């Protein structure tokens, strides 16, 4: 009502004339900008130069020096064998690898020719168009025949191979020998014994967690699901459907989540813990048992429980059974954008060779991906015996679908476990929700 009074008669016309120019300018700007759609990079590589500089990205481990030494020796030998070739190795931090690798896919010019990557990321990276298909070279490689089937599966997507397995990692049960002796406990042989032993420890020693568990520790929880016959998802003709809400899976989820509570690991603390937190608790003497990997050996040795612990395979449902473990580990792959494909594939074979893997085991404790090399090292180092047994008993892997990276990143499974242990939802409702979320991702990304 105020406007007509306040404005002089000629004002609206003048104003429109004044605003017309900038509006026109804006329209022109928008039209020009429309040409600049969000960028898409070209990862096709193209050339295959036979000399020059090869760039390699490997993960930076906690104590990285021994790894560097082994890699250096391998690289030196490679450089000698290939005249005019230089290899630059860069160690990238594990925590920020996702961003770095994404950036490498987005900007092929700054990308390496060869990189180490976590085996659960294989399918996602393939979908992103970042990894080169090396099926032909891998099949022709004589050492690859001894690669164990789970490791081979972890580099395979839709029947094609996208790299070479570098090492494997599995988890088993760490327990405190001194606590077991003091309380006169037997090493648990079945899953129900494991749960009751955990609670006995907590009852006798309330300052300890019986078995350190974590709501965000997916790979510590999955053996419970797998040993009960459940699966995360099942593949049907290349596409996956979630089965985490099946009756068998729910039984396993119930078993694992029963460990959260004041009688073992209080939910207020343990719901937010991840795998590393449970190992830290065990290494600092705050837990009677923990589910840890061969790769956690050094961390536990460095803790206050050194010399007071032992490791056995995680028991399954029946006595003598071993709960299927998640087959973790890393692979080495050639990037699709490389301009030195032949050289890069060659270096990949050298880094993932039986010889290098054997040396890496001595240096870092990484379990080799070749069945025969693994059997050899188990004889040398009795510590890895339970892990090798676990690998031998059969391991499981995450769904080899590009959707997995997204499911993993959006924390579907940790959310499910946390909802149950914090009492927000019961097992049936939480697992059904998790399955719904997973299926949505499978159908959009699969």
């Amino acid at each position, binding site marked *: 009502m105020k406007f007509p009074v306040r404005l002089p008669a000629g004002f609206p016309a003048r104003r429109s004339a004044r605003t017309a120019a900038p509006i026109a300018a804006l329209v022109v700007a928008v039209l020009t900008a429309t040409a600049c759609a969000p960028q898409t990079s070209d990862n096709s590589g193209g050339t295959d130069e036979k000399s020059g500089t090869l760039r390699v990205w490997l993960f930076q481990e906690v104590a990285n020096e021994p790894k560097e030494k082994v890699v250096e020796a391998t690289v030196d030998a490679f450089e000698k064998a290939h005249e005019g070739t230089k290899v630059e190795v860069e160690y990238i931090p594990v925590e920020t690898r996702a961003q770095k690798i994404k950036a490498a896919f987005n900007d092929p010019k700054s990308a390496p020719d060869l990189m180490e990557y976590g085996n659960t990321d294989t399918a996602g990276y393939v*979908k992103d168009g970042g990894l080169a298909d090396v099926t032909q070279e891998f099949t022709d490689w004589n050492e690859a025949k001894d690669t164990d089937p789970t490791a081979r599966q972890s580099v395979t997507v839709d029947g094609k191979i996208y790299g070479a397995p570098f090492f494997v990692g599995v988890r088993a049960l760490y327990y405190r020998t001194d606590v077991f002796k003091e309380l006169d406990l037997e090493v648990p042989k079945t899953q129900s014994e494991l749960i009751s032993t955990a609670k006995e420890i907590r009852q006798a020693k309330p300052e300890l967690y019986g078995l350190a568990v974590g709501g965000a520790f997916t790979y510590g929880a999955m053996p419970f699901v797998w040993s009960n016959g459940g699966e995360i998802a099942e593949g049907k003709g290349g596409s996956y459907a979630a089965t985490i809400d099946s009756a068998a899976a729910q039984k396993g989820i119930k078993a694992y989540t029963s460990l959260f509570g004041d009688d073992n690991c209080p939910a207020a603390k343990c719901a*937010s813990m991840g795998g590393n937190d449970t190992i830290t608790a065990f290494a600092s003497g705050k837990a009677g048992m923990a589910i840890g990997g061969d790769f956690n050996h050094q961390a536990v040795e460095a803790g206050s429980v050194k010399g007071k612990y032992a490791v056995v395979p995680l028991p399954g449902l029946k006595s003598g059974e071993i709960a299927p473990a998640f087959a973790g580990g890393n692979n080495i792959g050639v990037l699709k954008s490389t301009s030195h494909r032949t050289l890069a594939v060659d270096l990949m074979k050298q880094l993932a060779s039986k010889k290098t893997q054997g040396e890496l085991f001595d240096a870092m404790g990484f379990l080799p991906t070749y069945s025969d090399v693994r059997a050899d090292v188990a004889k040398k180092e009795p510590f890895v015996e339970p892990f090798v047994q676990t690998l031998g008993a059969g391991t499981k892997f995450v769904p080899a679908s590009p959707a997995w990276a997204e499911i993993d990143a959006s924390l579907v499974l940790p959310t499910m476990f946390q909802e149950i242990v914090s009492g927000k939802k019961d097992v049936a409702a939480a697992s059904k929700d998790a399955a719904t979320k997973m299926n949505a991702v499978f159908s959009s990304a699969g």
Partner: protein
Amino acid sequence: MKRMTDGASPQRRGGTVVTRKAPAGGGPAAGSPGGATASPGPARGGDRVRGAGVPGRKSRPGGGGWAPWLYLAPALVVIGGLLVYPVYQLGLISFLEYTQAQVSGGEPTTFQGFGNYATLFGDEQFWQVLLATVVFAAACVVSTLAVGCALAVLLTRVRALPRLALMLAALGAWATPAITGSTVWLLLFDPDFGPVNRMLGLGDHSWTYGRYSAFALVLLEVVWCSFPFVMVTVYAGIRAVPGEVLEAAALDGASQWRIWRSVLAPMLRPILVVVTIQSVIWDFKVFTQIYVMTNGGGIAGQNLVLNVYAYQKAFASSQYSLGSAIGVVMLLILLAVTLVYLRLLRRQGEEL
């Protein structure tokens, strides 16, 4: 200022009683007649401008129209490059299927129309997160303003030494980077090693386990790191208020609270408006505190706010297009809140 003197002159005649009794009403009351008398003012001015402008136009067509834009051009170019273009890209991406596979060229980019928005609005979690964000931001804004204003008034009341101490403490909190502040607060409230639990005798109570206690903890940290801005700004405003006004109110026997409500707050209104809008925008976009203190959104995502949710969609899951859609929705909400707020103020006769 001209308007104020115009409006004030007839009121002075009205009597001294009125000015004393209702200084609070004085602002708007003096404003509305001012507005009424002002209306012929610009009209007159407009006539004058037009009178001068028309012949000028005839001799140099368009010259006067373009000159201001020429001067504004550098600023517009910067704003266009740094603000308009990114927002335009954000909007564009939100209409596409744009994930890591599209960025690195594994799959072609496709147009989705409102597909991303449909996914977003169909997601039950989005609405929960939106509600949590609105309530949390509102609580943060109210608490920050209350604490900041109270301490600003306190600053004018205490002696030099305590004032210096309070200023330094506040500036320290202000200067602390959000990550550091969050980490320190988390450590203070740590269930195992935190001094707070030890002092209160709470044993190993976990503050981040419950949804509300986790939000409350983050709220404390947000207030702690954003009240200094409010405090310093309002304190500067209070200092600019003429002493005799406060003295007059005190002589009339007004209490501290009454002085604040009826004298200071109306006089500081422009400052409070800026501070409130700032706080709304900051607290609605809070990210670091939630991300650090609740470990990326709390147990089972119970402490997610929109910004962290957008981050998890856009970067953790590489769904850049869905993350952009969340960004656009946030932008629209903030624009709407700010515009409605400014509009309300305008109606009350205040101009920023």
